[in-house]
């Protein structure tokens, strides 16, 4: 009985603290949404109002004309689609070979790739820029697409961990049926890997959606802007203070696709993070 009272006290304490923490964490979002629904003149009013009065959606309509947001979304998807489709397949294929096939010098080859994970991306940034420039491909989406299509090392590493838990009997069964390696991979292993693929694809998509340094360096014309570059135009409008509802509306819009992904795939998200952090 005494034990139970103690637990109750601790739990109520945790409720109070965690409610305060959660509200603090959510407040910036609440403020963002609230501002985006205000009238221009009401955005900076004192005393501050959390609930806009009146609620107007004007900013959400206006923002599309002021910054190339739709172009940004389109370009980001143009980058993400080939990179993720091809890159994921290539990474999974390599992971399958490393986990389940006999290759001469396999461990050495694998270690070589792992070392790459320690090399920071900024080191190869400058010469890549120079070479893409020579090829006349700066200010196109190509430099942001091609490297990614050749796979993603951390994704490959993750898949290999995942595959090492799948028994080799699957292969033998398929081989006896006369299936080639590619067929075995596509028909048997790809379906088995679905949860791992889902989790990694979401993370990669988030990475591409939020990439800033790459697009900043390579893309000049507004017609090639990605979402992040389009949003950056909003940032420079911050000085004209009456535009805040629109600036916040643009920010809300850019968060929506990621939030939808998060809500739909919450379980995969958490699992994938846990595997790379706890077991990796």
């Amino acid at each position, binding site marked *: 009985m005494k034990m139970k009272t103690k637990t109750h006290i601790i*739990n109520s304490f*945790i*409720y109070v*603290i*965690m409610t305060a*923490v*959660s509200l603090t*964490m*959510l407040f*910036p979002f609440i*403020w963002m949404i609230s*501002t985006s629904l205000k009238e221009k003149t009401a955005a*900076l009013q*004192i005393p*501050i109002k959390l609930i806009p009065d009146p609620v107007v959606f004007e900013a959400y309509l206006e923002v599309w004309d002021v910054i190339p947001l739709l172009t940004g979304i389109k370009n980001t998807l143009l980058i993400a689609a080939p990179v993720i489709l091809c890159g994921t397949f*290539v990474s999974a*294929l*390599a992971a*399958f*070979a490393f986990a389940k096939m*006999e*290759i001469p010098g396999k461990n050495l*080859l694998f270690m070589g790739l792992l070392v*790459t994970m*320690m090399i*920071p*991306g*900024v*080191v*190869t*940034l*400058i*010469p890549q820029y*120079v070479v893409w420039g020579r090829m006349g491909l700066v200010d196109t989406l190509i430099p942001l697409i091609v*490297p990614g299509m*050749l*796979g993603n*090392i951390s994704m490959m590493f993750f898949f290999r961990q995942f595959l090492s838990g799948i028994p080799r009997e699957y292969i033998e069964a398929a081989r006896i049926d006369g299936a*080639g*390696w590619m067929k075995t991979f596509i028909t048997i292993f790809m379906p088995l890997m679905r949860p791992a693929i889902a989790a990694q694809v979401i993370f990669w998509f*988030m990475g591409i*959606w*939020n990439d*800033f*340094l790459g697009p900043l*360096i390579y893309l000049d014309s507004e017609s090639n802007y990605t*979402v*992040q570059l389009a949003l*950056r135009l909003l*940032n420079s409008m911050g000085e004209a*203070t009456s535009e805040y509802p629109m600036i916040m509306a643009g*920010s809300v819009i*850019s*968060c929506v696709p*990621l939030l939808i992904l998060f809500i739909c795939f919450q379980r995969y998200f958490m699992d994938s*993070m*846990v595997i790379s*952090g*706890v077991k*990796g």
Partner: protein
Amino acid sequence: MKKRKKVSSFKRREHLTGLLFIAPMYLQFLVFTLFFLGYSLYMSFTDWNIVAGTKNFIAFENFVQILKDPIFWKSVWNTVYLMIGIPIGMFLALLMAMALNRKLPGKTIFRVSVYLPAVTSAMAIVILWRFIYNAEYGVINLVIQQLTGEAGPNWLGDPAMVKISLIIMGVWRGVGNTMILFLAGLQNVPRDYYEVVDVEGGNSLHKFRYVTLPMLSSVTFYVLITGVIGGLQAFGDQFIMTGAGPEHSAITIVYYLWQKGFAEYDMGGASAVSWIVAVMIFVVTLIQFKLSNRWVYED
């Protein structure tokens, strides 16, 4: 004899197919990593400038210039300073993970609201915080003014406040991620370990010190090492929120690199900076791995 030959040709096909399967990733490794790594090393020894058109070998001149540049050292100091956010975030994340690692109805709501900042558009977050921090009409200062009647600090305009503002935002954004990892680590701790402490007559503090902490050490290591590697490459937040900041108070190493390469078009100098960053990351990672033998518990 005949049979053995058949087996080996079967094996050889497996070898070849396997090599073919890893070929695209190796192409990426050879071209986009090894080749450009060498290229960047070469560039760092030249005065390569894509506007001036120079491309002469100048040996270590770039490195000498950079190491003599007080702004470079400022950027190193700022980058390290901003990493204070890592231990702060880890500490808060651990507290929250421990609070949520019990039977609490509705704890998913807490978990999701703490994690939410990690799944939003990066630029939107920085723009939002820039608005929140605004000295005149940012919501923080408006609240301070309403409560105390005095003006709040100039979050992004005062060199003494800029880094603190960036750290607060960074902790807010990253703490949920770390919390989820700690939470998973806590759920992996076998219950009987705690029972042993009970049997031995230990209290909750003992449980924390002798079971929880050692069992979380490998997650802690992961969070620390990825945090430091990411921290040494900090760029986007600073670029958008403050630029270099007043008196270069927010300039980071990668920002310094960007300035050299894409504002001064000094590609040689920028490559040299990138190599300094790479060596720093390599050394720090090596030290962390060496030290990890002493405190990371592997099962």
